[in-house]
């Protein structure tokens, strides 16, 4: 197997070949480790490599498979894990200086489930400091680079995970998403990123303070929708260690792949983020609508009466919740935060309880409005990010310049690059981003496909049909 072949591999195909003993998990792991060694210095996708452990796991997997003990579709498949998920015995920094030497003595439930399935974990991926941000610039561990253009950011906060998948430095990655942190970098890097329904995947073992308790989700990043389904059906399900995980049964999500979508209804979400969306992104969405129509889906537009209050609800909820987890460090090591994060945390301490409670009342209203909308359509679509990936320089300056306008990356509504992803953190609805086109500069553009609570199967069904028809998933970054 030549190293270049890695770029074409999917979990769906590789797992079949591993089972038939046509691909050796040990050889596969070695090839990924060699590619990481070659490309990570320029991309900075991995923060910690687990080389020896990965090879040992791959050898065990190979021995088991050779002896006929095949554990399932992820057996021998190379993964990466965002650095805010605990792995026993492996440094877990959450992108922070404060946890730079923390080594957990337990596994996050997702990590335990992947290990049980025989997956090979190659290492921990780069992220924003405490998962707060949307570009990928970390003051302590350096900047992660977008594989489509090294001068550009990969997005965040799961930027390392998205780069690792896009650059074929692993086959899948697990990230976290409190405001769009799986979907934003997936969109910028041209991969599939799923934030499942709230409670669908256990968040036990996530580093506290890297997301709001009621807005944070663990998500999946892969090259294709089918691969995403295969990972989700392995990691989803009730976890007694996570009191917020859901007891809903876990379907075989991969069975939704290949089902037709004729006659189903798709609704384009209109709202406060429309004015922020750049022409190229809007055109890509328009083309996507035509593709859905060519697949015989019925199209309509969707409006949510109180959608414009989502940024306020998100900030009141997520910031209040995550700041409480920082109290001990704010008292003992305040200057070990970057200054912007320290200021944000202090501002978070000053959100009054009455604001938090009012936000939760409005939040219920918004959830009800989405529920009503999803009675009329099967899925909702929306842009993932208003623009393709900005440059590192633009993000360092803190603003974009477009058509003579200066667009601040942070304004009163919060993070500009998360404007269209936060509605689904507030509501907990499952949202998957898939590539839906490329800009004139060759940068990927993403589209969210959103379903009702616990209707990931519908999202996967529609996303897979679109992906195959549109064909954007075949493009690879020029590395």
């Amino acid at each position, binding site marked *: 197997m030549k190293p270049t072949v890695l770029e074409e591999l999917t979990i769906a195909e590789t797992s079949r070949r591993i089972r038939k003993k046509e691909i050796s998990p040990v050889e596969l792991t070695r090839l990924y480790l060699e590619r990481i060694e070659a490309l990570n210095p320029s991309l900075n996708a991995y923060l910690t490599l687990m080389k020896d452990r990965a090879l040992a796991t791959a050898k065990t997997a190979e021995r088991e498979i050779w002896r006929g003990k095949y554990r399932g579709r992820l057996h021998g498949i190379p993964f990466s894990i965002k650095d805010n998920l605990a792995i026993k015995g492996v440094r877990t920094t959450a992108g922070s200086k404060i946890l730079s030497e923390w080594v957990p003595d337990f596994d996050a439930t997702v990590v335990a489930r992947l290990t049980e399935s025989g997956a090979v974990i190659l290492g921990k991926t780069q992220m924003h400091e405490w998962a707060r941000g949307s570009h990928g610039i970390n003051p302590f561990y350096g900047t992660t680079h977008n594989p489509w253009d090294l001068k550009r950011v990969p997005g965040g906060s799961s930027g390392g995970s998205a780069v690792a998948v896009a650059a074929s430095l692993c086959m899948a990655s697990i990230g976290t998403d409190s405001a769009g942190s799986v979907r934003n970098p997936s969109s910028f890097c041209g991969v599939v990123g799923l934030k499942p*329904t*709230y*409670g669908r995947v256990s968040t036990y073992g996530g580093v506290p303070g890297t997301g709001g308790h*009621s807005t944070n989700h663990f998500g999946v990043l892969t090259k294709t929708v089918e691969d995403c389904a295969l990972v989700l059906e392995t990691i989803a399900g009730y976890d007694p260690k996570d009191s*917020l995980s*859901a*007891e*809903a*049964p876990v379907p075989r999500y991969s069975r939704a792949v290949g089902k037709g979508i004729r006659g189903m209804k798709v609704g384009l979400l209109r709202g406060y983020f429309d004015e922020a969306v750049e022409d190229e992104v809007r055109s890509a969405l328009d083309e996507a609508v035509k593709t859905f129509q060519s697949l015989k889906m019925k199209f309509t537009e969707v409006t949510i009466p*109180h959608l*414009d*209050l989502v*940024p*306020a*609800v998100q*900030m*009141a909820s997520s*910031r209040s919740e995550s700041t409480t987890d920082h109290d001990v460090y*704010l*008292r003992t090591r*305040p*200057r070990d935060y970057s*200054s912007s994060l*320290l*200021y*944000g945390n*202090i*501002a978070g*301490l*000053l*959100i009054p309880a009455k*604001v938090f*409670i*009012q*936000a*939760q*009342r*409005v*939040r*219920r*209203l918004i*959830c009800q409005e989405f529920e009503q909308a999803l009675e009329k359509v099967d899925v909702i679509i929306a842009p993932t990010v208003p623009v393709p990936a900005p440059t590192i320089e633009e993000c360092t300056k803190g603003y974009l310049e477009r058509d003579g306008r200066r667009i601040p990356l942070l304004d*009163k*509504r*919060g993070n500009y690059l998360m404007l269209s992803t936060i509605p689904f953190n507030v*509501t*907990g609805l499952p949202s998957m981003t898939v590539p839906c086109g490329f800009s004139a500069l060759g940068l990927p553009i993403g589209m969210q496909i959103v379903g009702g*609570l*616990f209707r990931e199967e519908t999202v996967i069904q529609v996303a897979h049909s679109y992906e195959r028809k549109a064909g954007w998933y075949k493009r690879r970054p020029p590395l």
Partner: protein
Amino acid sequence: MKEMVRRLDAEYGFALTEEEIELIAKQVEDANQLFKPLFEVDVTGIMPLMKIDRKPKPRAKPKRTRK
């Protein structure tokens, strides 16, 4: 607003400069502006959402018993 930030500074021991206090106070003011419209919504009878509701567990099928 600056006074509230100063009080927190004293309680937590951040050792903030005057410039930092001003910056944080501005962030708090901006956030308060963002929150204002939340109070213009009629939420009479609407309970706060304290968690995303779980889907109820499906009932187990009754077991067949041999007669």
